[in-house]
Every structure is written in C-alpha cells, then in structure tokens.
C-alpha cells in the first residue's frame, strides 16, 4: 500500500489526471503484483521493494548524463523536457496526440490490463503526470530517425510514458534510450500502435549507474501487414525488468526481436515477453541473449500464444545464455501455447559458457585469454547490437559493453 500512499500524498485527488485516478483505483486492489505468480516469482523481492522505495516527488532534474551529440538528421526528444513537437514536411508529419485522443487510447488499453501482467503499466500511469507523457502521431515516409530519451533522477522514482501511433504506410526508425542515474528508479511504459502497412524499427538501449533500477514495459499492437523490429539492450541496473507484450491483432504481420541483457555484480535483470497471434499468417523471429557474471541473476521468460484463429503462424523463439561465474545464475523459460494445427512453431534454449575449443584455438594463435574472451563476447554481442537502429554506431555500444565494466 505504501507506494499508493506516496502517490496520494504527493498529489491530492484534485491534482490527479483522470488516467491517474483510474490507475490508482486499480492499483489499490493489488498494491503489489502477486509475487508468487509466474511473471513475478523469480523477481528479487528486496530489490523490487528497494526499487519502489524512492521518493515520487518528481525531483525532475535536468537531464545531464553524457550522451553523444545530436546529429542534424536526427530528431531528439527528451520526455519531460521538450515534448512540444509539431513537424510537418511534404513527406511526413509528426504531431502530438491531442489530449482526448490520448485519454481515449489509454482508457482502452487499461480495459485490457491484467493485474499481474500489467502491474508495471498501472504503476507507471498512476505516477506519470501530464508532462511526462509523450504521445505522437506519425505518418508519411522519409521520416528522419527519432531518438527519445527517458531518465530518472538520483534518489527518486520517475515515471515516463511514451505513446506512438504509426499511421498507415509509414516507416519509422526510433531509438529509445532509458538512463538511470545513481540510486534511481525509472518506470518507463511504452505503447505503440502500428497501423496497416506501417513498419517500425525500434531500438531500446537502457543502462544505469550505481544502484539504478528500471521497470520498462513495452506494449505493441500490430495491425495487418505491419512490421515491427525490436533490438534491445539492458545493462548496468541493480534491478531491471523488461516486459514486452506484442499483439498481432489481425495476423498477417511480422515481428522480429533481438534482445540482450547483461548482468554483473549482484544485479538482476529480467525479460518477459508475451506474443499473441490474434489472426492468421503471423510471423515471429525472436532471439534473447543473456550474460550473467559475478553474483548476478539473469531471467528470460517468453511465451508465444497461438489460438485457433492463428493458422499458418510461423514463430520461433531462441534463448541463448552465457553463464560466466560460479555464483551467477540464469533462469530461462521459453514457452509455447498452441491451439491452431497448421502452424510452424519452435523454440530453443541453451545455457553454457564461452566455447573452450574456440578459446584454445585463438590462444594457439598467440591471442591472450583475455583478448580471446573479448573476441568471443564481441561476436556474441554484435548480433544484437547490429540490430539496434539509429545511433548505434555513434553510441559505441560494443565498446561500452566490453570495456566499461
């Protein structure tokens, strides 16, 4: 109940937006998710409660973390700071959603919420004030790449919400960056609606500093003939959860996901994905990689749901994991629930360490063990990093992963 009390004390009922009222009301019936449920049972309880322990008093400090210079061809937005945007070009337009559009959409989403699945979203929407919700409507073609930043300030729990409608026939490249400062918690909820024939190349890069926490949730609805590509990378969080829910609402859509999480020290990072095929001819190709070192814990749970209507679905899910220390642990659970008979579904999972034979081979060529390990790791990382769109080169993610820790 504590978290609700905190929100209420911070915002009296008169100052709450309609969305906040609805979500708070829903949260009241279950202030915390059911920690024995499948989605939450592996979550480290003390880390979760620590994550919620920060002040919600919107200590929204200016965003001053180091990040690459903006290139001229990229549109850069920081949620909570410069959310006023209206770009109209002859080929495309990017506009803010009107308040009534936002309200209607969120209300509709909330009606489908399930307390355990969407607890992170409920918390996010209860916390998010008007300034921290960015809603965009994008249409057209030749749209410049977009970068959207969210961050949490030290010693506070900040919530940022992003809602994007990709209208018919548009192609968007979007990189979302979530940054956590020292001792902070960021609650980031993202909602995408991809209309017919639209495509979105989406990158999510999340990293923190000391004791940063992240509750990151991503909800995507794909209409027919849409394509959604996601490349994601999460690292350096004391506790992070990345929830991905994708619904191919009419089938005939394509989804590609390549995600990675890297845990060190005593961190815990988990990825939960749920892909619903609500129509025929859906396609999914998903790979999730984890690397766990020191005393850390990496978790992946993925579920693919193929009901009767989703004939001719072609879905594959692969979970590849590297366990590098005796004290680290990895949990993985790729799962399939299938009712349609004319489908091709497969999943796979592996847990191992760096390939000894390959290491040996490299060492016989005079490469040191450290260098050889780095080489192996870089090829392991590269598959995911190369899938993250927009500024991936300027961000030099590989160098960050290999050399910073």
């Amino acid at each position: 109940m504590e978290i609700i009390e905190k929100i209420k004390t911070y915002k009296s009922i008169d100052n709450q937006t309609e969305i906040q009222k609805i979500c708070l009301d829903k949260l009241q019936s279950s202030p915390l998710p059911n920690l024995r449920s499948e989605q939450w049972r592996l979550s480290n309880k003390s880390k979760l409660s620590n994550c919620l322990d920060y002040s919600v008093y919107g200590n929204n400090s200016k965003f001053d973390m180091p990040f690459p210079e903006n290139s001229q061809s990229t549109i850069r937005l920081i949620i909570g700071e410069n959310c006023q945007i209206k770009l109209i070009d002859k080929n495309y337009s990017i506009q803010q959603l009107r308040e009534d559009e936002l309200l209607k959409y969120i209300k509709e989403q909330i009606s489908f919420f399930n307390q355990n699945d969407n607890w992170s979203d409920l918390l996010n929407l209860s916390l998010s004030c008007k300034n921290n919700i960015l809603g965009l409507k994008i249409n057209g073609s030749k749209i410049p790449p977009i970068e959207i930043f969210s961050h949490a300030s030290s010693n506070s729990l900040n919530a940022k919400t992003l809602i994007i409608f990709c209208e018919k026939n548009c192609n968007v490249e979007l990189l979302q960056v979530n940054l956590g400062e020292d001792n902070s918690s960021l609650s980031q909820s993202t909602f995408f609606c991809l209309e017919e024939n639209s495509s979105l190349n989406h990158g999510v890069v999340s990293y923190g500093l000391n004791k940063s926490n992240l509750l990151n949730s991503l909800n995507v609805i794909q209409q027919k003939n849409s394509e959604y590509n996601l490349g994601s990378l999460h690292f350096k969080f004391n506790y992070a959860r990345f929830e991905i829910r994708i619904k191919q609402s009419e089938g005939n859509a394509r989804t590609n996901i390549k995600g990675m999480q890297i845990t060190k020290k005593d961190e815990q990072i988990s990825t939960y994905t749920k892909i619903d095929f609500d129509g025929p001819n859906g396609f999914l190709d998903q790979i999730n990689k984890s690397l766990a070192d020191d005393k850390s814990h990496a978790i992946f749970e993925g579920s693919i749901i193929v009901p009767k209507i989703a004939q001719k679905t072609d879905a594959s899910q692969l979970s590849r994991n590297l366990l590098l220390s005796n004290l680290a642990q990895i949990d993985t659970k790729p799962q399939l629930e299938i009712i349609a008979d004319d489908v091709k579904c497969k999943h796979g999972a592996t847990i191992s360490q760096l390939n000894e034979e390959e290491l040996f081979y490299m060492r016989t060529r005079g490469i040191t063990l450290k260098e050889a390990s780095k080489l192996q790791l870089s090829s392991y990382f590269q598959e995911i990093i190369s899938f993250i769109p927009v500024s991936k080169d300027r961000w030099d993610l590989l160098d960050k992963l290999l050399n910073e820790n």
Partner: protein
Amino acid sequence: MVNENLVKDVVKEPYKYGFVTDIETEKIEKGLNEDVIKLISQKKEEPQFLLDFRLKAFKKWQKMKEPDWAALGYKKIDYQDIIYYSAPKQKEKISSLDEVDPKLLETFDKLGIPLTEQKKLTNVAVDAVFDSVSIATTFREELAEHGVIFCSISEAVKNHADLIEKYLGTVVPASDNYFAALNSAVFSDGSFVYIPKGVRCPMDLSSYFRINSGDSGQFERTLIIAEESSSVSYLEGCTAPMFDTNTLHAAVVELIALDDASIKYSTVQNWYAGDEEGIGGIFNFVTKRGKCLGKRSKISWSQVETGSAITWKYPSCLLLGEESVGEFYSVALTNNLQQADTGTKMIHIGPKTKSTIVSKGISAGNSKNSYRGLVKMGTKATGSRNYSQCDSMLIGDQASANTFPYIKSQQPNSEIEHEASTCRISEDQLFYLQSRGIEFEEAVSMMVSGFCRDVFNQLPMEFAAEADKLLALKLEGSVG
C-alpha cells in the same frame, strides 16, 4: 483430401478394456480420517513405523492445498467421497496361483496379462494389482534364485521391513506434494523390487494395475532398489473399466540406484479416458521420482501415456552420484476431451551428470497436451550436460499443445540445450503416401509412429509393439 466423416467414424473405436469384473469385494466406508488410515494399516497388519508414517503424511496432507498451477481444468475432487480400500474377497493366505479366484485370473487374461502357469508370459515376471491389493506375482521362485525380491509392497512390509523402513519416503517424502502426501497416508499396495549387488535381473519385471470399482481410488506405491552394479528393467501397465464417474488414481513410485546400478522403468498407461463428451475417466495424479545415488548410476524413464481423463505426471531424476545419468522418453497422446500435463524434472546435483529428455506430445480432438519440465544445474554440477527435445504434433484445429520448459543453471561449467517444435500431419505427406497406394489410416499411423520412433526405440520389445498398436488405435481417424 482428408475425409472428415472417416475421422468421426473411427474415433468411436471403443475402449476395449472397459469391462467390469463382477466379484465380491471387501470395501471400507467412503471418506478419509485417521480411523480409516488406522483401519487400512490394521487390515494389512503393518508394523508401527508404517502406521506412524501414514499418520504423519495425513497430518501434512490436511494442511496442504491441492495444486492449481498445471494447465488442467477439472471438477473439484471430493476426497470424502472416495473409498480408500477395496479388495477382492479371497482366502486368507494364497500359496499358489490355483487358489486365486478364477474370475480374477480371467480378468487379467482378458487384459492380455495371463497369470496362470501354462500361459505365463515368457521371461516377464508380473505383479498383478487389482483395486487396492496385489493378487499374484509370477516367477517368484526363479527370481529368488538370483536373490531378486519381487513381491507386493504389503508382503515386503511383512518380510523385508528393514528395507522398507530404510528406503520408503526417501525419494518422495510424504510432504513432497499434495498427491504424494495423500498416497503416503492411504497407499494400499503396489510392488517392491530389490536387486542385490552385482545382479543383472534375469527377466523383465512388470506390474499390472487394474481399477475395478467405480467409487474407489487406487493408491499404489512402488519401490525399486538397485544395489551396486545391478540392473533391472521394469514395466508398468494400467487399465480401468468404463464408468461415468471419475476415479482417482494417485500413485507414488520411488527408484533408488546405487553405484553403477541401472533401472529402466517403462510405462504404458491406458486408463479409461472418458467418453467423447468427457464423461468419466481416470484422474491420474502420479509422483514418480528416481534417485541416482551412486556413482555412474542410471535411471531411465520411458512412458507412453494414452489414457486417463486427466494426467498429472512428472517422472523425475535426482542426479546425485558423480557421472550419473537420467533419461526421460515420453509419448503422450490425448484425444477427445483428455488433458495431460506431463514432463520431467532433471535435477543435476553431482558433477559430470548427464540427462536426456525426449518428449513427444500428440493432441487430437478437443484435448489439451502440455509438456512441463525442469532442468536444473546445481552449483556443484560441474561438467554436466542436458539435452532436451520436445516435439508436439497437432491433429485437428481444436486441440492444444503447450510447452513449458523451466531451465535454471547455477553452474557455468555445464551445458543445457533445449529445443522444441510443433508440427502437424501435413496433407502433402498424406497425399504422397496415398499416391503410393498406402491407405489413409495406415499413412496416418505410419507418420505418427515415425514421429514417436525416438521414444519407441527405448521401450522394451513387448511394450514397443503394444504402444505402436495402441497409438494407431487411439488415433485412427482423428486426422481432419
């Protein structure tokens, strides 16, 4: 190309083991309380330690909740509406098979398990369990020559109490889960096998379980101990009559393999599955677990699950001994409204342990078939390996196939590989076979049999042939 009507016609293939044997039985009142447990124990003239074991389990059971995590939906079981002890009335002591009620012998004859001397299956010793009691065990003398003990668990309690006291409940503790606790409290019979050091059991051992009464549950318990460097192959078969009520079957099987010992446990489960509307059928809640205690020990589970309205079964291996090996080969077939949630657990505790899981699920009709498995590498399981493969085949667009593999590793120097796929019997393949002059039904059966080959290859010969036939029979015409 695929003939829908043909499907419906053949699905109606009756369950041929559904007859009831009209025999006078001794039953105790419905319901479960301490007095019932004491009465069961008293009827079986058990020593005090076993009564204590039962009562302790009962106390634990009362505090436990029925598990609801499995992907199964069934109506609530009223545990007070079950008869916990039902035995055919017969003379006090039976010295030879000739004294067994001929009706019972006839029953097992009809089931294809002849017990009489002249018809005994060659080279397979059988322990036949009818409702709550074991009625006969064949080839006992021959086995005794090799020092192998094969008898009903009630007899073992009387004659080998030390072994029972030492091992009972060590693999599946009474408080392990709801159904194991219930079984520990009320188990009535089952089989006991002891293979002494260095003995390779000269023939396959087998238990045949038959439920005859509609209102009594069957709670059998099997305990197999393989001493150092011994080996045994054990087969288990089950059938039940057709009733329109659900009957509860909650069994516990415990296997213990010491250094260099190997146990192969094969099951063909064909309990009555209920009719097309899902009325009747056995609720099968079974806890099977083997402990590879010794170095280089090996436990191999192979199962063909075709019956039961509800199946809840996860034969598991605890791999403690260095270089011990666990195997699980399973074919689970569900049709009509059957529901199966089955799989295995491979818990790697010792170093250099290895496990293999091959699971084939076939779902037809409106059925639900789930694979649920756990592979865990503990911190000391260095150099361990696991390989899992779970394939599902869907027949018809009303059936569901789910896969829930839980994988957990705490040991970097170990490897886990898991793969799963889902497929159907494609019309192209059927067309190809039919164009070669193979009948539709036979083509389906060939493809199913090919799909299951990895598992059938692991079954003892007598079983493999039976399983193949059983599958073909159960599936005939369900392709649509």
